């Protein structure tokens, strides 16, 4: 050990080096917090010189501590060890003095200093450990150290050294040549150090000089008091600190007599039954005041909790303790420390357990407050007493803090996974508190807690949910059974949770429940159920008025729905679902999976960015954006390529703008390397598809690795291959129809590797939809193509019709805007009258007037969700309107 000290001793700054200190504290794992605080207290009391009656020798204290429990003995012996080491250091110094070897002394001295400092820092750290490692307390503890008496021999050593130095200096003057340069240098350094160090011990040194006996007995810690006593003494001490008055009325500290401590302890011990509630009230009154130290409060409350006997007391203390724990972290950005969180979790569980075992109390928000708080209350049997408090807010806060910590922890570390493990406990608390609310029939709270529960469940696959349910059931045991949520089957569970929420009065809960339900359906491949729910709820019409988290949830639902449709092979539906989010170009932001750094070339305001950060989803809830993009572009490809082929080279009808842009960009490239990323693959596939090489297109799409992320990869790949064949056939027919007069079905089926039946069904469909002017000849099994070409005049006339429509629309919009400007009050009425019909023009107009708020702007586009599924009919119109 000495060698370790020595090593760190060379580092003169080691007292501030926390890593060094950590290594020391790890040596003392056995010493509990309590013991250290005892030591602290006792050290404080050692200021009084009378109180060291059993400090006649180190062995004395050893013997004493032998009587105590093992843990204390451990620390004693460590302290002794330190003293021994210090003494040995002093001895080295003395030896050095004799030898007049300054280098050695200097080193030795350094060593002792550092040792002392380390010792102090250790204490500091122990304080810190106890008081939650806060810097503020660090300084406080260090202030306390000044009060701690330094071992007498140390002072003595200091004095002797000083004297010796003076002597040496005089000698040196006399015989300067004797000393070598090294020695002189070391001596000077020593002088400086000593001077600096002695300053802090000035009074001690003076005292010693005056009367060397007064400090004769080394001031070592006295631990005679029993554990309970010392604890009470501590309690009293911390209480007096709470009140902020050094000379507090509590007798324990002021009284110099050791026996009084015992008395005081006794007096405190009585608190357990009566004064506990008084103390609690004192603490509660101090809560929120500036001078109050929150961490101290927590510690005090913890102690009170231990002493609480009746369930009333426990409940009261727990309520106070949990809220003060939540108080400990005030900043908006940071998150609650994990240990702190866990202890809150534990305490909430404890609280719930009390409620479960003792039916005479329950907590709700609007309960009457008792006047005589200081008395213990025992309920009459059969008449439960309501206490004021809000369990639901605790539970919600706990959940929020959990989310916050997940937001802040790097998701690629094991920390994140460790943190995720806590979800099981949290979920259990949710279920448990739900049962509690049911028992006491607190409807509003049930709704909220069920919502929380649903939010932990809805985005998970069924296997995970059932695992979670099993784990929860095992944690909670049999006696905790909900009456409203009885299902164990995951799908049924989600259904019950949602249907319960549908009956709630609060519309936000209903909306969110609906969205979660849809999400869950979509996640589990029930596209049509999900879609019908979405359409029947008419959420898309009002969602732009909802709060932003709900809008985010809505976006998530849409995306999930799109992915679900894609897995089912419903390309068109998938595309129209994904269009809004992915087509906007900022899916990351819309899904709250990332913060956009810049908007329109200017950085986002700091407060907005922070708000956005708070809305971020934890990583495990994310939807893979790359997969999303891939799906979106694949859908776009399957829709856009045949449409392009059909409309000819210079058509203006765009299905997917982003895809179009990418394709155009890709076509402009002079040289094309082999595809590297997903986009390259899809672009290559699109080009191959356009030129009729469906096999190449298929191979390119299949080469994308991200499909592996989808469940049932093979199924999806098969679906895609088939789609590519079909769309390839369609594209081919559109492109080359004008060059054929007849095409044999057999030929087509050979070209695209489709069965003749399939080919004829596709062709029939095209004919029926008037995409292809042809007819099927059943007898000869071929497609007879009619060559109808628009004359130039017809073409132009059609174009002009389009243009005219556009022009008229634009004109109307202009007029509307102008009217709005001239008569703002009328426009207001107009807007009200329109209600939420969601006229794109009006919406844009409002945005323009009221300045561009980021999410409001988004809602402008949101209106177009009206026709998510009716896009075929009205898609063109909204497109032009948005342009």
């Amino acid at each position, binding site marked *: 050990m000495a060698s370790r000290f020595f090593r760190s001793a060379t580092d003169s700054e080691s007292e501030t080096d926390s890593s060094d200190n950590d290594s020391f504290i790890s040596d003392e794992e056995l010493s509990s917090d309590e013991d250290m605080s005892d030591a602290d207290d006792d050290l404080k009391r050692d200021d009084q010189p009378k109180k060291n009656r059993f400090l006649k020798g180190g062995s004395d204290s050893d013997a004493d501590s032998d009587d105590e429990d093992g843990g204390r003995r451990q620390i004693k012996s460590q302290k002794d060890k330190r003293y021994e080491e210090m003494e040995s250091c002093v001895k080295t110094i003395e030896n050095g003095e004799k030898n007049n070897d300054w280098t050695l002394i200097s080193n030795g001295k350094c060593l002792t200093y550092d040792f002392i400092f380390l010792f102090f820092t250790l204490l500091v750290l122990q304080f810190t450990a106890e008081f939650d490692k806060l810097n503020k307390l660090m300084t406080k503890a260090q202030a306390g150290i000044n009060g701690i008496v330094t071992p007498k021999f140390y002072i003595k050593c200091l004095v002797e050294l000083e004297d010796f130095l003076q002597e040496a200096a005089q000698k040196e003057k006399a015989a300067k040549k004797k000393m070598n340069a090294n020695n002189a240098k070391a001596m000077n350094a020593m002088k400086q150090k000593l001077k600096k160090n002695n300053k802090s011990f000035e009074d001690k040194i003076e005292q010693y000089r005056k009367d060397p006996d007064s400090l004769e007995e080394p001031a070592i810690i006295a631990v005679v008091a029993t554990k309970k006593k010392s604890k009470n003494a501590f309690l009293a001490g911390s209480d007096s600190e709470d009140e902020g008055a050094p000379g507090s009325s509590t007798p324990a500290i002021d009284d110099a007599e050791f026996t009084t401590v015992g008395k005081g302890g006794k007096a405190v011990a009585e608190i357990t039954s009566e004064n506990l509630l008084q103390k609690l009230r004192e603490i509660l009154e101090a809560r929120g005041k500036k001078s109050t130290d929150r961490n101290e409060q927590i510690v005090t409350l913890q102690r009170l909790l231990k002493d609480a006997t009746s369930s009333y007391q426990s409940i009261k203390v727990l309520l106070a303790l949990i809220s003060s724990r939540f108080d400990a972290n005030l900043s908006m950005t940071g998150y609650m420390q994990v240990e702190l969180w866990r202890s809150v979790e534990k305490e909430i569980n404890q609280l719930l357990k009390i409620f479960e075992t003792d039916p005479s109390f329950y907590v709700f928000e609007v309960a009457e407050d008792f006047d005589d708080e200081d008395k213990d209350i025992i309920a009459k049997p059969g008449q439960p007493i309501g206490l004021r408090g809000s369990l639901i807010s605790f539970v919600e806060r706990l959940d929020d803090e959990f989310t916050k910590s997940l937001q802040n922890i790097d998701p690629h570390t094991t920390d994140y996974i460790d943190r995720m493990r806590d979800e099981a406990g949290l979920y259990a608390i949710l279920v448990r508190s739900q049962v509690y609310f049911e028992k006491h029939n607190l409807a509003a709270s049930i709704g909220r807690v069920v919502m929380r529960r649903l939010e932990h469940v809805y985005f998970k696959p069924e296997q995970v949910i059932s695992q979670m349910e099993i784990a929860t059931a095992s944690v909670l045991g049999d006696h905790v059974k909900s009456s409203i949520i009885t299902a164990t089957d995951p799908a049924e569970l989600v259904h019950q949770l949602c249907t319960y929420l549908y009956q709630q009065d609060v519309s936000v809960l209903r909306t969110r429940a609906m969205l979660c339900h849809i999400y869950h359906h979509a996640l589990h491949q029930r596209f049509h159920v999900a879609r019908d729910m979405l359409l029947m709820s008419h959420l898309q019409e009002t969602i732009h008025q909802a709060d932003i988290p709900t809008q985010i949830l809505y976006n998530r639902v849409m995306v999930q729905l799109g992915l679900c449709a894609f897995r089912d092979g419903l390309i068109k539906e998938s595309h129209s679902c994904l269009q809004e989010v992915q087509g906007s170009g900022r899916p990351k932001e819309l899904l709250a999976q990332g913060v956009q750094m810049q908007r329109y070339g200017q950085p986002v305001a700091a407060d907005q960015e922070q708000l956005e950060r708070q809305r971020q989803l934890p990583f495990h809830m994310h939807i893979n954006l790359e997969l999303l993009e891939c799906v979106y572009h694949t859908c776009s490809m399957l829709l856009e390529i045949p449409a392009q082929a059909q409309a000819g080279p210079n058509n203006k009808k765009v299905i997917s703008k982003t895809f179009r842009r990418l394709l155009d960009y890709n076509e402009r490239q002079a040289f094309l390397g082999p595809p590297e990323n997903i986009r390259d693959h899809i672009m290559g596939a699109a080009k191959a598809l356009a030129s009729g090489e469906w096999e190449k297109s298929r191979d390119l799409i299949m080469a994308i690795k991200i499909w592996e992320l989808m469940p049932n990869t093979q199924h999806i790949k098969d679906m895609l291959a088939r789609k590519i064949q079909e769309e390839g056939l369609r594209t081919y027919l559109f492109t080359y129809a004008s060059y054929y007069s007849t095409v044999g079905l057999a030929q087509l089926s050979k070209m695209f590797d489709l069965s003749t039946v399939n080919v004829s069904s596709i062709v029939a469909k095209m004919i029926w939809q008037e995409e292809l002017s042809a007819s099927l000849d059943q007898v000869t099994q071929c497609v007879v193509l009619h060559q109808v070409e628009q*004359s130039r005049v017809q073409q132009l006339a059609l174009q002009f019709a389009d243009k005219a429509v556009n022009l008229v629309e634009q004109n109307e919009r*202009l007029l509307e805007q102008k009217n709005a400007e001239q008569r703002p009050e009328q426009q207001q009425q107009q807007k009200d009258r329109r209600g939420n019909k969601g006229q794109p023009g009006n919406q844009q107009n409002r945005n323009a007037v009221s300045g561009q708020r980021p999410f409001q702007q988004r809602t402008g586009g949101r209106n177009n969700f009206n026709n998510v599924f009716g896009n075929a009919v009205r898609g063109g119109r909204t497109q032009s309107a948005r342009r």
Partner: protein
Amino acid sequence: MATSLPSSEPLHTVQLDGLVVLKIIKHCRESYPVDVTGQLLGLDVDGVLEVTNCFPFPSSDDDEASAQYQLDMMRCLREVNVDNNTVGWYRSAHLGNFMDLNLIDTQYNYQNSLSAQSVVIIHDVSKSAAQGNLSLRAFRLTEAFMKAYEKKTFTTESMIKNKLTLSNIFDELPIQVHNSHLVTALLHDLDSPVADANRLPSLTTFTSTQKTATLAEDNAPLAPNLEVLDLELDPFMQKNLENLLDCADAQQQEHNNYQYWQRSVAREQTKIQAWLTKRKQENAQRAQNGQSLLPEDEVNSLFKLPTEPSRLESMLLNAQIHNFTKQLNQFAGPSLGRLYSVQELQK
């Protein structure tokens, strides 16, 4: 060069000499796809602008050279004692696409600096060819428009004030074609049936047996013209539609500009409003504290509304579109009649 005669009466008619008409037609047709211009010479007498001569401008890009040519030409004409008083100019057009800033600018210059009685004659080559009717129109800028153009401001407000619409940019004047008696006599002489059929190559559709019988009738001034029975409708429609599309595009562009302006105005106005309310609050507070009030009219110096884009362009485009659609209508009506009659005939 400028006219020395006082403009006693407002013009009511333009009288073109046959020579002028022929010269204009010749010049315009020869350089068909390109638009060309030329100078009109003559005199206005009692509200009738008599145009007796004209000469084409060279179609070179060099402004100085063409100005020089113009001067030289005038000088030469004066030397040979021909009318050399400038009374306007002419230009060719295609299907009525003449309404543009260029035309207005030139005409403004003519009316403003040369003579208040100047006119512009528009010869629509394509239309004349397509429908077989000579299309010659004479225009002048209206007084109101002249005034507005002088100020160069074409905001909505000023247009409302001056009551400017697309229909009153120009005054159209009736055109009379006038021939000297000698020429009329010659024409009558040419009309006589003695004329040699070979000199009239346009009558190829008739067989030689009918030649002599029909010659006189066909050559009479108002002889029935077979060109009106032409069933080839597409080129004309097509051309018209193309022009329309271009116009629509341009108009859309104008719309966008205007909309952009509107938006920026709105933005600026909200800013102003915000500033004003802030200032008002401040003043209220100051009034409470007994301090002197801050002026509120600073707002005008602090903020500046963006200037409205000129509406002239969009108005011209409107006029243009109006022209095209009118032409289409005029063309489509008789064409439909022809088509139906053909249908009947084919039964």
